[in-house]
């Protein structure tokens, strides 16, 4: 049965321009990333440290969030706790209305994509303009980003030229400098006219009440400093305890994302303009977003620390204190710093692109985030759309065990649908039973050799296999039958020969 997901995968595979773009992106970023990681003598140590900091923070999340809130308030900022997307959006919309804001400039931010803030603002009659070039292109095209770091990776130069011609009236040109200059000219006017700047944050530092933003275009710094009001929408997992911890993450983030040592701009913002300061916004609002994150935090499945592989372990009821030395697997999803490296290295993402995924988060991290935040129903096949190659786990700067998590989600998805896929379930039950009876296994394997291959391949998994590949040639004799003959050789029969 073909689902919408299968359709989107098919469309992506047939799109040669997309295939070329994804291959180019992956090659460029992964080469740069591998070089950048190799240039640091202590890369693996940094990853281990980053994992430990994230783990400590997530295990003590409420402490650090309350500290962050207190510090932001001390510096004159406002903190709003948003339980879900609707609350976060309506806070921003109401704030804009109350201050008479007609135009807001936005920096690229996955979390505002997640809550679809632009739609909420538009519905309220407030213009929201994306100021990251890639994100601006996507907004003009009315699409969603297809990559966490490079939102318009699926767009070719020609498509951007067409778009700028149609939407901005620019005479058709594929000259990148001209296209960029046009966007810059349009956006500059928006920056100067905007009453509100909306950003996300890469990190929020609890001890100082600061937010940290890394970028390459300067548009985030502009968005957060020129307008009178700065609103930062930040997922609660973005908090880190201390400024000193930032040193670890700054070394990992840009290197993992693009292979740069650091983004061109790193802004550490600690509240609005204070008396005597010449510039900066007059108001700072921090929206701390839950939107399903605490559900992951209340993960009932824990496993002992130090497992070679770390999927389901001891099942604890939700809310019980974790025993010493236990970490929760699903919580580790919250360690993500959105660098996008797992997308670049993923052989599945590189074939299907971001738009094939059911939600804004794509690639391996999307495959584990989406079912945990939205449930399995949005796309039950998503956790299965992985060959479990493990490249994402190796590249992740905070060492999230993504393949183990996919395996766990597969078993949870299977359990969550007791009536679903009954054929597959029955098949596996029968298979498991037969595998426990070596005599039956032997008998079955002998019998199978008499069934014509065409008959076997008429339906089911073999038919799916044959859609794109030939079946192996079924040999006349299994290894075990060969072995049995060899063990009891008739007189004179040599051992070790092919039968």
């Amino acid at each position: 049965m073909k689902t919408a997901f299968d359709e989107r995968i098919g469309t992506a595979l047939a799109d040669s321009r997309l295939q070329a773009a994804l291959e180019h992106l992956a090659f460029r970023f992964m080469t740069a990333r591998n070089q950048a990681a190799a240039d640091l003598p202590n890369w693996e140590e940094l990853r281990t440290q980053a994992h430990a900091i994230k783990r400590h923070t997530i295990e003590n999340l409420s402490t650090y969030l309350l500290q962050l809130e207190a510090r932001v308030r001390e510096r004159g900022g406002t903190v709003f706790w948003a339980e879900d997307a609707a609350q976060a959006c309506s806070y921003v919309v109401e704030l804009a209305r109350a201050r008479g804001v007609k135009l807001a400039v936005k920096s690229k931010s996955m979390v505002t994509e997640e809550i679809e803030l632009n739609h909420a603002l538009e519905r309220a009659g407030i213009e929201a303009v994306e100021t990251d070039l890639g994100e601006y292109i996507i907004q003009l095209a009315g699409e969603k980003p297809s990559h966490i770091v490079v939102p318009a990776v699926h767009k070719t130069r020609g498509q951007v030229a067409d778009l700028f011609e149609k939407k901005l009236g620019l005479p058709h040109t594929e000259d990148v400098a001209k296209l960029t200059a046009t966007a810059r000219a349009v956006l500059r006017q928006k920056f100067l006219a905007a009453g509100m700047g909306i950003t996300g944050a890469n990190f929020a530092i609890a001890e100082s009440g600061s937010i940290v933003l890394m970028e390459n275009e300067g548009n985030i710094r502009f968005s957060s400093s020129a307008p009178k009001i700065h609103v930062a929408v930040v997922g609660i997992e973005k908090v880190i305890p201390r400024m000193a911890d930032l040193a670890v993450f700054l070394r990992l983030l840009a290197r993992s994302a693009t292979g740069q040592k650091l983004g061109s701009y790193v802004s550490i913002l600690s509240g609005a303009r204070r008396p005597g300061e010449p510039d900066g916004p007059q108001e700072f609002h921090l929206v701390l977003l839950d939107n399903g994150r605490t559900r992951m935090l209340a993960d009932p499945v824990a496993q002992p620390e130090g497992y070679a592989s770390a999927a389901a372990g001891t099942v604890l009821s939700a809310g019980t204190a974790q025993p010493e030395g236990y970490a929760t697997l699903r919580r580790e999803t919250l360690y993500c710093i959105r660098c996008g490296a797992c997308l670049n290295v993923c052989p599945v993402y590189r074939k299907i692109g971001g738009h094939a995924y059911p939600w804004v988060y794509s690639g391996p991290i999307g495959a584990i985030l989406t079912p945990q935040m939205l449930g399995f129903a949005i796309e039950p096949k998503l956790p299965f759309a992985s060959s479990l190659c493990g490249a994402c786990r190796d590249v992740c700067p905070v060492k999230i065990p993504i393949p183990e998590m996919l395996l766990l989600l597969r078993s949870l998805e299977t359990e969550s649908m007791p009536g679903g896929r009954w054929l597959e379930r029955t098949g596996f039950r029968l298979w498991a039973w037969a595998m426990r009876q070596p005599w039956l296994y032997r008998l079955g394997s002998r019998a199978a050799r008499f069934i014509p291959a065409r008959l076997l391949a008429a339906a089911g998994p073999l038919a799916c296999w044959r859609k794109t590949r030939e079946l192996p040639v079924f040999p006349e004799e299994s290894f075990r039958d060969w072995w049995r003959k060899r063990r009891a050789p008739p007189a004179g029969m040599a051992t070790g020969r092919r039968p």
Partner: protein
Amino acid sequence: MFITCVVDQFFPQVGIATVEVLERCGLEVDFPEGQTCCGQPAFNTGYREEARRVARGWLQAFHDSEAIVAPSGSCVSFVRQQFPELFHDSPAELEEARRLGARTWELTEFLVSVLGREDVGAVYEGAVGYHESCHLLRELRISRQPRALLKNVRGLELRELDLAQECCGFGGTFSVKFPELSAAMADDKLRSAARAGAETLVACDMSCLMHLDGRARRLNLPLRCLHIAQILAGTSAGAGGRAGA
């Protein structure tokens, strides 16, 4: 010997080659007949209880083995790394899984890292590309050993693939749940082998090779897919074309 179910049923010649190589190294080999499958297919598809039942059978079959050697990185990594998790709440079985896991080896790892043999006296004429299967590479971290063995095969010219470490797209039930996507990944690998000028593609896992060979045949590509045991047994040089043949 732990002759995985795929090898047992579809590629007995790979099991036979494994026997030949191990015996040439002076070992006495046994095939405990109680073995069937390790349970990985069920586990990876989300059926943990079924996987556990099958894995329990594996533990019983190999209870008395001194060293367990398999011509597969994937099955070995499942036994070593996932068994402890499958039996986490059953102390006796957990203990047994750890005990047996510690003496379970992938074939090339066993030859090179345990026996210290990098040359098993094999002969193979031709340009050979080596595909690094994912679980072998990223779960067991075995990459040097197969290459060391291949370099010592007389007549064999090792051609490095630019995408040697990329997944081939097999992925167990992934290959039948997403047949087109799985094949598109195989095509990248096959193109990489062609770029390297490899006439034969070698790997340590028959499941990857079954997939790559099936795709190569569908596309009528002149590429042989062979398990490393077949190269090391030295029986493949003149023998029939395909991995499945």
